[in-house]
Each structure stands twice: as structure tokens, then as C-alpha cells.
């Protein structure tokens, strides 16, 4: 296997079987729907316009391409092919480096050349985002090739393997045609996705958020900074925005909706499922700077007489997110808060222990109308991980988790 740089191939001459020069290589293209890495087509610039040369018709690559068909057999390139062009769509563009978890700009592309059944096969190996690729692009044609290659060998490459590259395509039709999804991006931690998304231009951000799975998008959106969050939600369609908001944690979703202009919030609420909408509307009624404005309504509440075993079972079936589960809450038949059980105590107890015996003393809670300062003080004083929020009748209405308090405090730092 040999490696050849894209910039070296671009502009190189193309010969027909008789050895006459018919044109220059203008573009190399992939058909991602068929094979995500193999070059499928060459666009040749001839005297009679741009023409399509299927890569199977290439006999050899050696300082130029030799084709097995003559130029008259090549069809004209009209630009409507479902192809991904390396020079136009990849070179100098921004892509997502999923391994390095950041956005990078492509300086050059390294192609791997193999011979399979006597036939050359060219695949995209990696993209070069470092100085080596940049220098090659700058000096190609200016410095003789052998000297250039000798110079470049001395510079360490900064390649990103093609498997770790996530492409960004802002045209929805092309996205579908070329099967550009963000599967690899979706596997990253939401905070990393958020970092990456914050580095993109608005259209590109929108493209990512329209393609990602709703749950992944929701988790990532929660971690994006508020200003960018707003911009993203405003750019999405109302129903897509509603889908994502529904998957978000209620407190984060309420914060986001509260920051949007009223009509936009209404539009999104309209598209939501009734239960999700009801929850949002309730949370939105509370002022943002009170305890209730920060709480989440996803928590696990059990009867005080339930046993540890029943609690573990309930945990297994819990539908919400994991953060509030560091504490279980005990409520009586009327929903009044009776006690809190730290997860650690639950794990250490024997299966028949009633939960009431495992509660943390004293029982700390705060009123829904409590101010942020009071909430933070409680967390600090009692070293809490979660704080239950009760209404006037001492009934449990929500839970504030430590990550909310940390965000709150960081904003003041």
C-alpha cells in the first residue's frame, strides 16, 4: 500500500489508452452511500468541458492517471451526481475530529493506494490538519517535487484517520443522498458534543442538530452555553425543537424555554406531547431564580414502608436520568415528604429493610419559593448532593441536583 496526497493528484494529467493526454484531474469523488472511503469517480477537465471518469476505468496512477477508456466515452459532468467531492467539499473545509473531540480544518487528504486483482484501488486514509499538509499545498508547483517531498518527510504529519472524521453538510437533501449522519459524533460525551457544536457556524450547528438522535441532541443541548443554545433552538423547526426539548431534563428545558421570546416558546409548547407540555408550563410558572425554577420533576419517590429490595426494583425501572438517583425520596400517601435515603445506604442494606430505617437525618428540604442563595447555602452547609423541594403543604414537588448549583455558582465566579 502506498500513500499519495490528494493535492498531488489534483491537476495531474489524464491519459487515454493510446497515451495521449486528454485532460487534467479536476476532482476525485466518493459515493458515500456505497463505500465511505473508496474513490469512485474522477472528474477530468478536458478541452470540451468537465467529464466523469469512473474509477474502475483507471488502469494506473503514476504521475498521472491512465484510463482504459477513451475520452469520448466519458459522460459530461453536470454536477447533479450524488457524489462527495474531495476538493470542493473536503479540502479547506471544517470537519469534526471525533477522536480529538474538536473541529478542525482540512489542509490535505492522504489517500491509500492498493492493487486489488490487478486493478488500482484508491481509498481515503486520513485527513491532514497539520503543517505538512499545509506546506505541500503551498509549495506544490513552486518547488520541484523531489525537493518538496524531502522537505515534507522531515515534518511530522498530523493525520486524523478517516474513521474519526465526521462530515458537516448543511444542505438537507444532500445529507440524505450522501447518507451523512453523525453516528460517530453521537457516541461522544454530551459535553464534548456541545464543545464541538459551539465551534461551528450557525448553519452547520443547525445541520448537526437536525441529524442527531433526539436524545443525544437533548443531552448535548443541555451542555451548550445559553447564548448558543438559544440560537440553535431558534433555528430549528418547531416540531424538531419540541422533540428535543421533550427529551431534555425538565429543569434544563424550562431554563431554555424561559429564555426564548414568548411566541417561540408557545410554538414549541404547542408541538409537544400533552404531559411534557404540562410539566413545562408548570415549571415555567416559577421564577427562574427560585428553588422551583431550578428543580427537576424527575425523581424516584417511594413509600416509607417499602423495602430495600422493592426500592432496587423501582430503580431498575426508573425512566428518567441518572443524576437524581443519588437519593431516593420517601413520601406518604398524600405526597408529603417524609425522608430521604442516600443510594449508598440502600446498597449496603439487606433486602428486607424498610426504607424508613435508612433515612438520612436531619431531613433537609426547601420551599419552592426559596431564593438561589438559600439553596446554595443549604447545599454547602449539609454537604448535599440533592435537595428536595416542597410546596406549602410540605408535599414533594421537585428535586435540585448538585450540578445545577455548580452552574449557578460558576456564573457568579
Amino acid at each position: 500500500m502506498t500513500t499519495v496526497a490528494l493535492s498531488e493528484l489534483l491537476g495531474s494529467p489524464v491519459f487515454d489508452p493510446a497515451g495521449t493526454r486528454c485532460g487534467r484531474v479536476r476532482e476525485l469523488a466518493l459515493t458515500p452511500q456505497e463505500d465511505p472511503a473508496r474513490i469512485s469517480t474522477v472528474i477530468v477537465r478536458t478541452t470540451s468541458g468537465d467529464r466523469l471518469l469512473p474509477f474502475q476505468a483507471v488502469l494506473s496512477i503514476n504521475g498521472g492517471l491512465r484510463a482504459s477508456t477513451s475520452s469520448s466515452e466519458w459522460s459530461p459532468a453536470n454536477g447533479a451526481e450524488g457524489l462527495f467531492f474531495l476538493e470542493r467539499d473536503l479540502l479547506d473545509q471544517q470537519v469534526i475530529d471525533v477522536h480529538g473531540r474538536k473541529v478542525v480544518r482540512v489542509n490535505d487528504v492522504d489517500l491509500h493506494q492498493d492493487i486489488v486483482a490487478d486493478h488500482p484501488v484508491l481509498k481515503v486514509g486520513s485527513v491532514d490538519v497539520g503543517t505538512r499538509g499545509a506546506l505541500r499545498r503551498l509549495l506544490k508547483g513552486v518547488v520541484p517535487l523531489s525537493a518538496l517531498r524531502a522537505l515534507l518527510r522531515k515534518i511530522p504529519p498530523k493525520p486524523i484517520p478517516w474513521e474519526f472524521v465526521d462530515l458537516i453538510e448543511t444542505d438537507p437533501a444532500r445529507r440524505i443522498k450522501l447518507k451523512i449522519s453523525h453516528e460517530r459524533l453521537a457516541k461522544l460525551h454530551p459535553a464534548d458534543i456541545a464543545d464541538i457544536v459551539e465551534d461551528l457556524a450557525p448553519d452547520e450547528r443547525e445541520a448537526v442538530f437536525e441529524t442527531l438522535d433526539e436524545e443525544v441532541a437533548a443531552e448535548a443541548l443541555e451542555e451548550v452555553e445559553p447564548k448558543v443554545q438559544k440560537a440553535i433552538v431558534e433555528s430549528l423547526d418547531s416540531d424538531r425543537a419540541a422533540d428535543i426539548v421533550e427529551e431534555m431534563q425538565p429543569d434544563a428545558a424550562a431554563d431554555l424555554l424561559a429564555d426564548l421570546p414568548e411566541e417561540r416558546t408557545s410554538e414549541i409548547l404547542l408541538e409537544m406531547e400533552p404531559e411534557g407540555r404540562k410539566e413545562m408550563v408548570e415549571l415555567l410558572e416559577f421564577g427562574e431564580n427560585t428553588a422551583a425554577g431550578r428543580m427537576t420533576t424527575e425523581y424516584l419517590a417511594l413509600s416509607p414502608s417499602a423495602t430495600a429490595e422493592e426500592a432496587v426494583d423501582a430503580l431498575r425501572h426508573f425512566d428518567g436520568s441518572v443524576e437524581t438517583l443519588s437519593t431516593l425520596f420517601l413520601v406518604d400517601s398524600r405526597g408529603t415528604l417524609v425522608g430521604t435515603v442516600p443510594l449508598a445506604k440502600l446498597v449496603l442494606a439487606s433486602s428486607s429493610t424498610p426504607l424508613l430505617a435508612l433515612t438520612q437525618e436531619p431531613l433537609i428540604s426547601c420551599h419552592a419559593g426559596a431564593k438561589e442563595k438559600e439553596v446554595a447555602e443549604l447545599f454547602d452547609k449539609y454537604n448535599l448532593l440533592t435537595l428536595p423541594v416542597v410546596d406549602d403543604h410540605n408535599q414533594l414537588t421537585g428535586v435540585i441536583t448538585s450540578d445545577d448549583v455548580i452552574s449557578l455558582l460558576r456564573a457568579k465566579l
Partner: protein
Amino acid sequence: MRFLKRWKTRTLLFLAVVGPGFITANVDNDAGGIWTYSSAGAQFGHMLLWTLIPITIALIVIQEICSRMGAVTGKGLSDLIREEFGLRITFLMMLGLIIVNFGNVVTEFAGIAGSLELFGLSKYITVPVCAVIVWLIVVKGQYKTVEKVFLAASFFYVTYILAGVLAKPAWLDAIVATVVPPHRDVLMRPDYLYMFIATVGTTIAPWMQFYLQASIVEKGVTKRQYKASRLDVITGCIFTDVVAWFIIVACAATLYAHGFRNVNSAKDAAEALHPLAGDYAYILFAMGLFNASLFAASILPLSTAYTVCEGLGFESGVGKKFREAPVFYWLYTILIVAGAGVILTPNLPLVKISILSQVVNGIVLPFVLIFMILLVNKKELMGEYVNTPLFNVITWATTIITIALTVAWFWTLGKGG
């Protein structure tokens, strides 16, 4: 964009009160601007006034294009150039930008040196001290507060307006000269053409286009919102050129009218404020010039470093450590150190150098304009926000006229000898 996160720590924007357009306009009246307009008034009286209206129109159009591109694409100018024209062209453009901006940085430090010399402070002390201050302000991230101070202190420009009025200029002559160009013989004089190019170059400086577009992106202005920033851009441009008009008129009425045709130092220019403030003219002038120079000296190297790093794909941002973004920090530091260093050469003709740097601005401007025109007319990029035919005509006209001026200047130089 990386812009958004990085520029947060040292935002170059007033968030609530003024927008990117107004700030760019104020930075436009930097040391180079003040020197150029003062010299224009002193050397040629009212004969360059007619250029201001066409220049203002061109400036408004060009700034509007940049803010539109920033709002619609969400990307900076150097990013667009990289994505649409490739690495090699971007590299050459960035190289040119560094050279041109270096000249501008030198000019800002010349302004600092010149203004403080009026108080008897030696440039060998003031320049290094201010260079360190400028470097620290940005790197330590106190930029936002300092920016507010600078902008508030920019009201000093108003003193030129007042000086212009109190100098009892020949109002009728000035107004006529604002619309009627002088005779062709004057137009074709090499020194006149030189000053013409300098006036264009200082009002429509290439670096400002990159800076403005990046500011719009940083502010997060969207397609729907950008119509509001249009007003901000237009008022900024008009304000800047009104001040320029008055600077020229004030210097024409004082220096030119009394035969002091050459502005060689800050002292000469301060004389222009004499009608306003008498013997304290130099204090007002010095403070205004110092404020303008320090402000621009804080913005210019930083903006250059960001533009170049973004265009060429290097890490950038004052939130990062030196190790993490070496090219960015080195570029920024070298621009300041070398810029200040040049000024420390003894017996340097500060004003002449400053005007030369603005001439270089004017010569490089057409290249940036050509890129802008090509970009803003691309349908794939701008969608329905491509240029109207009128805007295209104005921008092409500006490009061609600026090139023609440069060619004419070279030609008359050769002829005159």
C-alpha cells in the same frame, strides 16, 4: 465558530450600548487617521474635501457587505476566503495583511510617542511602557472595561469639530470644495495623489473589514437581526467622516491658511486646535491622539493574530495558554514588540511614516475588495442576500478607482522624477 468561545474572554464589543459598526468607526479615527487628515488639511487646504463624500459612500457599502456576510454565513472573512479560495490564496492574503497591519501598528505607536512628546516625555520611556500595557490589557482579559473607557474618551474627537468652527474657516469655500474637485492639474500632482490614496486607505483600512465581520460573528447577529446592525454601521461611518471633515477644515483654516504647509510632528497638528483652546491646544490634541492610538494599538495586533490564525487553521484565543496557541501569541507579541521597536529609532519622521502606512492600506485595499465582491455574490454562500446590482457597481467602482489612483501615482512619480 471558535470565535464565539474564545472572543468571550476579551470581547471586542460593547454588548448593550453600541454595536460593532460604531466601534469600528471609532477605531477608524486612529493615529493614522488623525495624521492623514491633519496633513491633508495643512498641505492642501480644502482641496481634498470633495473626496470625503464618495469615500463615505464606499465605506458604508463595504462595511455593510462585511456585516451582511458575517450575519448570513456566521463565519469570518478569512474563514470564507479559506473555504472558497483555498489555502494558497489565503496564505498570500494573510501575509499581505500582516505586513500592512504591521505598518498600522507602527503608526499607532508613533501616535503614542508623538502625543506624549508634547508633554515632554521621551519616547524611549513612553513607547516601551505603553507596549507592555497594551500587551497586558489584552492578555489579562480586562479588555471590556478598558474598552468602555476608551470609547468614552473618544469624545475628544468632538474637539476637532469645535476647533473647526472656532477657526473661522472660509465656510463657503469649504462647502463648495466638498462637492467640487479641484482642477485637473492639481489632481495629477504626485503629492496630491499620494495624500488621496492615504485618505482612502485610512478611512477604508483593509484590517477593519476583517475586524468588523468577525465582530458581527462574535455578537451572534443572525440573518434576521442584521438589518438592525445596518443602522449601526451607517451611523458609525457617517460619524467617522464628519470628524474627518472637521479635522481637515480645522487644519486648513489654521495651518494651511498661515502657510504652515507641512505637518511634521504632533506639535504642528496641535497648533490646529489653537483657536479652540489657545495654549492648551496641545493638551486636548495629545489626549485625543493618545487615546486613539492606545485603543487602536490594543485592537489591531489582536485582530490580526485572530484573523491569521483562523484563516490558516492555527489555535488562537487569549483564553488559551502560550503553549496551546503558540502561533497566535507569538504573532501578537511580535507585532507589538516590532511595532514599538521601529518607533524607538532616533530621529524618525513619525508623521511621514504614519502616512506611508495609510498609503499602503490604500494600495492593498483593492485586493481585499475583490475577494469580498466575489464572495458576496456567490449564491451558494449568501442565498438571497447576494449583492444588489447597485452595491456591486459601487464596490467595483471603488476597487477600480483605488487601483487607478495607485497606478496614476506611480506614473506621475516616474514622470516628475
